[in-house]
């Protein structure tokens, strides 16, 4: 809901969450699947940087509504 309302104001928003299905149902458009509920931005700095980079890449990309990006493995 926060993502949708902030995007409604025209500010691109990437939602990092481990529950992307729910995120798409409530209207988020840019979603990156985080590794776990308890630590969406990973456990260590290296992992966190990969997730943040992925999220930034999504902010720089044209997306269809309700797009979910997985972390590249």
């Amino acid at each position: 809901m926060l993502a949708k309302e902030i995007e409604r104001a025209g500010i691109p928003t990437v939602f990092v969450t481990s529950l992307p299905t729910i995120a798409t149902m409530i209207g988020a458009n840019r979603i990156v699947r985080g590794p776990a509920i308890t630590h969406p931005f990973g456990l260590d700095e290296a992992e966190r940087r990969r997730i943040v980079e992925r999220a930034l890449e999504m902010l720089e990309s044209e997306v269809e509504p309700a797009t979910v990006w997985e972390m590249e493995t």
Partner: protein
Amino acid sequence: MRAVHYLNQFFAGLGGEEAAATPPTRLDGAVGPGRGLAAALEDIEIVATLACGDDYFGEHEDKALEVLLGLLEAERPDVLIAGPAFGSGRYGYACARFSRLAVERLDIPALAAMHEENPGVGATDGKALVVGTAVNVAGMRDALPRMAQLAQALASGRELGPPDEEGYLPRGFRRNRLAEKPGAERAVDLLLSKLGGETRSEVASGFDRVEPPAPVADLSEALVALVTEAGCVPQGNPDRLPTIRAQGWLRYSLAGEATLRSGEYESVHGGFDVTLANEDPNRLVPLDTVRALETEGRLGRIHDAFYTTTGNGTPVAASIRFGREIAAELTESGVHAVLLSGT
């Protein structure tokens, strides 16, 4: 049974734009499209038509509504029918506001008719029913019988079925009802129908979608804000953010902060085990990483506050309000992009 019909100045025959400043007025019986409506209504008489100029309503909404509600109440109707307003925004909004308040304040069932993308649809707030129409007056003949049918249902007080069966637009909530077949059989029916080329669903997808805003052109020039639904707050939760069903959101300064240290920040979210988050709050709000990227020039600047709430058990309406309030602050601060974390 008795119905009251609401029209704008044009459809009530009072005049075009030159009469748009006409204050609320009462006319006897059915007028204009109301005559077609009356012909389609069984056992319901349109006892009066209330009309108001579109501009008058827009510019003096409170006063217009007060007068209209007074006139409506005096008629003791069983139902209020507003429109059809088709694609007209001012007219649709007036129909929506009037019918909504008829329900809320006077407990009079009400419906408004307009095109599904008319901004008035949202202004009913799900209180009054909306009958979808074509975008312009060419859809009059199609709209009136459907409005009449729904008015009949409302006036009789019978329990309404789902939107597609009764012919009104979804109001954004779901109601439990007893199905004739168990879920497994219905699922197989839907699958067979899908294989047959027709995709149906019992769960309508959310109709309130926001188109994704254009991407950020250059992040190295952008002001980026951090927002979280994961309940991250300064240690000790000084502002007492609830662990569930938050009533609001909080803003904390990040000025001069390079990282969210354990022992200085914590999560009070009641919906997951916060042990790992409290060991390193950057796992929820990645300040350490975005600061590094800021230093490296990958990101322009990090907004000097982060926004937080607990996203569990929050009613949809409250959550929408938080989003709007935070969005307003971000807009005012000139934020270009947001990194949001949820659990």
